[in-house]
């Protein structure tokens, strides 16, 4: 038996996230909590991207659009005085699913690089659409006065409670994906990635499985966007910008596409790296860009892949 390195790391990371609020309280380092929140929210989105990209082979370059949509689903109701989380969260999920359904129906008719570019273009379309809506702040976006309300159950304004809400979403996303990819549906999606023609000749309408998968991922990412809107007290079109979509892809690939925990590791490493670099120099994109290129050229299989190798070697 090999030592279960991967399992060990998974448990350690989740445990660390779970006890972090207590630690940061003791160490008086509140900014760590802030950082962990950002990591967990973006990791949730990255986990959903991994479902279509890593398991389904659909390289979506527009995933940040769903984060924006989720955030607007907090902000627009709030703008009209509706703060209930029971309205905002389903709205976010529904809007994300609908956007995925409509765009996916067209995107998934195409293959390969067309797909990459079209998902990119649709995200950009959403971006410009919101830029042009003056009512909701246009380019600048709007501030949200208060977080979603779940009166009597959760106080989202409490940092600790909000933290655990986010953690539950992250763990929930991971669990959901692990169930989906091992269920019949997930088998079909992975088969379609591996050999589409063979799947069709076996009797699978691969288009529909892909579309369903795409919609699930869109809904999940929009839920992450709902968290993001709450976290920032703010929404703007910039959240949908395609560089953010690129960051999400980077998280997935850095951690290891098609591995369950890869996106979480990728998010942790990328966000801490960005944080460190940007506090060290204003020219940080230069260094991050170079690192990204180096990772693509020289490191394959991502962090989970490295852990798996470690596991086999021991």
């Amino acid at each position: 038996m090999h030592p279960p390195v991967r399992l060990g790391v998974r448990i350690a990371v989740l445990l660390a996230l779970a006890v972090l609020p207590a630690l940061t309280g003791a160490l008086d380092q509140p900014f760590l909590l802030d950082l962990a929140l950002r990591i967990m929210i973006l990791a949730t989105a990255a986990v959903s991207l991994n479902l279509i990209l890593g398991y389904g082979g659909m390289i979506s370059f527009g995933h940040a659009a769903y984060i924006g949509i989720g955030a607007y689903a907090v902000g627009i109701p709030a703008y009209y005085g509706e703060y209930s989380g029971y309205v905002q969260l389903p709205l976010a999920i529904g809007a994300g699913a609908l956007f995925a359904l409509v765009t996916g129906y067209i995107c998934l008719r195409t293959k390969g690089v067309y797909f990459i570019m079209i998902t990119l273009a649709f995200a950009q379309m959403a971006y410009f659409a919101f830029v042009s809506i003056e009512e909701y702040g246009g380019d600048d976006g709007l501030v949200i006065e208060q977080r979603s309300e779940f009166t009597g159950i959760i106080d989202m304004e409490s940092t600790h409670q909000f933290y655990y809400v986010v953690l539950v979403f992250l763990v929930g996303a991971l669990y959901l994906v692990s169930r989906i990819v091992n269920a019949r549906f997930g088998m079909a999606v992975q088969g379609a990635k591996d050999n589409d023609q063979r799947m069709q000749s076996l009797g699978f309408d691969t288009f529909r499985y892909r579309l369903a998968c795409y919609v699930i991922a869109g809904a999940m990412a929009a839920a992450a966007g709902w968290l993001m809107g709450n976290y920032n007290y703010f929404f703007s079109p910039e959240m949908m910008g395609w560089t953010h979509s690129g960051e999400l892809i980077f998280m997935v690939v850095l951690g290891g596409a098609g591995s369950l925990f890869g996106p979480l590791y990728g998010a942790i490493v990328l966000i801490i790296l960005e944080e460190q670099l940007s506090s060290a120099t204003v020219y940080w994109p230069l260094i991050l860009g170079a690192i990204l290129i180096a990772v693509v050229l020289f490191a394959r299989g991502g962090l989970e892949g490295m852990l798996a190798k470690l596991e086999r070697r021991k």
Partner: protein
Amino acid sequence: MEWVLFVSQLLNGLQLGVLLFLLAAGLTLVFGIMDFVNLAHGSLYMMGAYFCVTLTSALGSFPLAVLLAVILTFILGIAVELIVSRHLYQRDHLDQVLATFGLILFFNGAVHLIWGPEGNPIALPDYLNGRISLPAGIEIPTFRLVIIAIGLAVAVGLIWLVTKTRMGMLIRAGASNRRMAGALGVDIRKLFTLVFALGAAMAGLAGMMIAPITEANIGMGDDILIVAFVVIIIGGIGSIRGAFIAALLVGMIDVMGRSYLDDFMKLIMDNQSAETASPALSAMAIYILMAGILYFRPRGLFPPRHR
């Protein structure tokens, strides 16, 4: 007069169209021949603009600066191809997308380091800065006509190059069948470098044309790149002719949508809703066009014949 505005908007659309063509031509060639998705194409557009900024103030002559800056972007294209791109041709599209995304960050950081965070204007010489009067009271900025003329000239030149010359034949052979081009005895690696650099130079030229109007700034290529993608998707990846037609189409629809959609919408709904809906709709117009075309032709208007 109404139609004076119309003609001027027509020229705006044409201008955007030719600029998009300059960008899209390189993208579509590089993709068609090397099967390479280059997100950093917009960075080359930006670099062209910045080279032109520095050279214009150093030399005091805009045309001379453009000439030299085009050559510099060509050389930069060669460097990028040799250092990064060529190691990615055999990789899958995901790796290409990521690495060139890294290139974008890199170039944005580099420009920040060299030219600072602020936008950099380019001063046009007086003879380009004026307006030209056409019959019937239409006045047009001279520089706009220059952009259109240069863009069309490059388009004609490129189409001539691709359809009429030996190199063009090789490029086309490469686009439809890489192995065959190799069998023709072409040094395929040199051809790739050349095509990449040619695309870079055209993108750079587009940046130089736009910078005197908008200033050169960091990330200027990031958004227009997506529009260039829309162009090559509509045109059919790998097709110069498709890129040209799609570029003009997209340029026209974008400009016309922004200026006339609300008038049009007022015909079918009340003023109030037309004024709120039309900015969003015109912002989405080209994407809706793309979606519509893809729905019926998933590989664009002029799809590559085989692949």
